[in-house]
């Protein structure tokens, strides 16, 4: 095959003539390219580990909830789609920070809300709904066929107006539309109920009143710190087929089947329907042990589609969204808000019929009355940008510094490699002066001679480049394995490394090639 490209063959021969020098020059290029690939891998790895850490902290979680507890009093969403803020405590006066509320006013507000919560459920005629779902859901209503003198799950999720705060407005179509936004990692639709779960065919009719979550297969990805004690989580097939399978929390499993029991394969009853238990979920973290009454492990999970089918409705309570990168949570939340307003055909002057909250907002509101928390975080609309994004930005800056350092090392290595190539070629030109003279005498033009040497350098650098890519990948793997540095070798950097190597060859062969091309044939032929 080489015979078809005699000039390539020449380059090969020339390189093979000085094996030692060729090998040394190649090692130079290899180190340079390897350093380049490794530094890119380290840079991307650091970037990813920052994102991973922020993600693990839940910093990338956005919770979309049906209804808007502040509807009646809320300021209009501004046209930019900023998360709705409220004038409950103090009117915004233009600055980012609200004026400090007068103490007695705040006290009055709190008292007012306590009154609402004590006296009202979602059916309360006040229109101001108790925000704590535990208060309003503390009723027996797990039998969808029973006749109640108060709204049932179906009523609250369905079309019956059950108060503005719990307006059922989210659909799976909304979830699907959100999933199509850029920057979205996972979208999990949710319906949340309280229900009695009992062990099927159990003569003792052992039962447990707990949280019921209709959800989707990706929920474990959204919830950090989960592990499966037994079995598996719900699958996409379960959700698509609205099958009657259930994953139960550790607490529920303990209460129904005995401490530490493995109930996978057993059957439980919910709403007089039989569900097969496919898994038990527990906490991976010592920091959040399963406790009775918690929302995650004293709970059961069934496909959201199964609940929709059994209750014959299609509304959702929540849509949990995670962003791919922790840094763009605010922007994504804003996009979700605008998307839902458009989908729900909410006019400019109308408040949202849903609410979008980021974890940062929720964290600040923790321990406060939800309404108060919302009032605070609503006014501090840029709160998550101040925290997560600043944290992520400062981590990124640290990365950049490290990356610049590595890039500097890589550049120096490439330069050294290039000088090695140039040295080899100068040697080659000197040793082959007679040959070059002969070629010129036989009709080679300047560019023919120059091309031969440039090609030689390109070949050398490409070979060094391939070795460098392999070496860089090995080095990245080694750093990850032995030093637990996170690295991401991108195929793109591997592919780009070769043109870089070739370019290096061209750059450092120009001078020797020019020297060869300018040789005087008479002098060159006399050269010994």
């Amino acid at each position, binding site marked *: 095959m080489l015979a078809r490209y005699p000039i390539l063959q020449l380059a090969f021969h020339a390189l093979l003539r000085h094996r030692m020098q060729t090998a040394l020059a190649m090692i130079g290029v290899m180190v340079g390219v390897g350093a380049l690939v490794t530094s890119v891998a380290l840079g991307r790895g650091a970037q990813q580990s920052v994102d991973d850490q922020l993600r693990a902290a839940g910093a990338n979680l956005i919770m979309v909830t049906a209804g808007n507890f502040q509807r009646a009093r809320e300021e209009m969403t501004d046209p930019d789609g900023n998360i709705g803020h409220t004038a409950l405590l103090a009117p915004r006066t233009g600055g980012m920070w609200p004026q400090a509320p007068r103490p007695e006013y705040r006290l009055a507000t709190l008292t007012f809300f306590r009154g609402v919560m004590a006296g009202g459920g979602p059916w309360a005629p006040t229109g101001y709904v108790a925000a704590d779902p535990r208060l309003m859901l503390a009723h027996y209503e797990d039998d969808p066929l029973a006749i109640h003198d108060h709204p049932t799950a179906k009523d609250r999720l369905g079309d019956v107006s059950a108060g503005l705060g719990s307006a059922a407005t989210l659909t799976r179509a909304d979830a699907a539309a959100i999933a199509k936004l850029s920057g979205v990692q996972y979208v999990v639709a949710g319906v949340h109920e309280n229900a009695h779960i009992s062990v099927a065919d159990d003569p003792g009719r052992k039962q447990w009143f707990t949280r019921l979550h209709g959800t989707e297969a990706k929920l474990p990805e959204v919830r950090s710190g989960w592990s499966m004690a037994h079995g598996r989580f719900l699958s996409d097939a379960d959700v698509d087929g609205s099958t009657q399978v259930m994953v139960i929390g550790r607490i529920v499993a303990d209460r129904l089947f005995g401490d530490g029991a493995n109930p996978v394969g057993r059957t439980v009853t919910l709403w007089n329907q039989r569900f097969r238990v496919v898994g038990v979920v527990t906490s991976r973290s010592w920091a959040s042990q399963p406790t009775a009454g918690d929302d995650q492990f004293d709970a059961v999970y069934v496909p959201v589609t199964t609940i929709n089918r059994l209750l014959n409705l299609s509304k959702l309570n929540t849509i949990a969204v995670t962003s791919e990168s922790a840094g763009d949570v605010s922007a994504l939340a804003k996009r979700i808000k605008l998307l839902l307003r458009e989908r729900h055909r909410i006019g400019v002057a109308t408040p949202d019929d849903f609410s979008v909250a980021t974890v940062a907002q929720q964290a600040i509101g923790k321990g406060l009355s939800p309404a108060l928390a919302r009032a605070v975080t609503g006014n501090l609309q840029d709160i998550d940008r101040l925290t997560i994004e600043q944290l992520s930005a400062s981590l990124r800056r640290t990365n950049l510094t490290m990356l610049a350092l590595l890039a500097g090392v890589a550049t120096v290595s490439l330069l050294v490699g290039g000088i090695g190539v140039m040295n080899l070629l100068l040697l080659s030109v000197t040793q082959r002066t007679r040959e070059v003279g*002969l*070629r*010129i*005498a*036989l009709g*080679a*033009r300047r560019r023919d001679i120059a091309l031969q040497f440039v090609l030689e350098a390109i070949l050398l650098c490409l070979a060094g480049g391939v070795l460098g890519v392999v070496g860089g990948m090995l080095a990245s793997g080694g750093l990850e394995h032995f030093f637990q540095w996170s690295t991401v070798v991108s195929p793109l950097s591997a592919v780009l490394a070769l043109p870089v190597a070739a370019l290096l060859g061209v750059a450092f062969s120009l001078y020797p090639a020019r020297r060869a091309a300018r040789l005087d044939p*008479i002098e060159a032929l006399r050269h010994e």
Partner: protein
Amino acid sequence: MSIISLQDLKKTYTLGDNVVQALAGVSLEIEPGEFVAITGPSGSGKSTLMHIIGCLDRPTEGKYLLDGKDVSGLTRDELADIRNRQIGFVFQGFNLLPRTSAVENVEVPLLYSRPVMPVAERRDKAMKALIAMGLGDRAHHHPNQLSGGQQQRVAIARALVNEPTLILADEPTGNLDSVTSIEVMRILQELRERRGITIVLITHEPDIAAYGTRVIAVRDGKILSDRPNAPRDTFAEAPVAIAAVG
């Protein structure tokens, strides 16, 4: 029309403060089909003359018409093209590429011909040239596997491969014994007789110059004498069977 026409050619070199006049006004006409032997002791200017005739060097003054075309003012690359198409070189030291087979050595001028020649055609032409030199069975031997005479025949095949009208032989027998020298001279004679190729031979040996049809003696950068010659008969001297140059 003369194939080579030199008109008052001068060439001076500057070596430090010394100005050396290698050619001090040479005028010369060489007709197609002549076998011209240029002789002279070293330093006489014969090498400089050959370099200029071979388009490897340019005169300081005077005119050089090759095949009627003035080449004294051409660029380096234009001269390279002329060397490639019109002139075949045979050197004293053969100047074959080491670690390269005979046929690949013969192909070298074809690598630089314009337009670019297809691989198969290149190989074909090189093989034909080698066969004409009686070396068809040595095509894939490397120079160090060939005798001196065979090496010089590879070099002649290389000079012939682009079908030039002029062959410049610079001391072609300098590294050869007398029998092999006669062989090489016979090849040159046959090239002239059968193909009508003009031969310009540079030598310092009167014996070798005697194979030409015309002998020019150069001394101190000037033509000392220029006379026709009855060439020595190579068949009578060494009736060895060598390939006919067809």
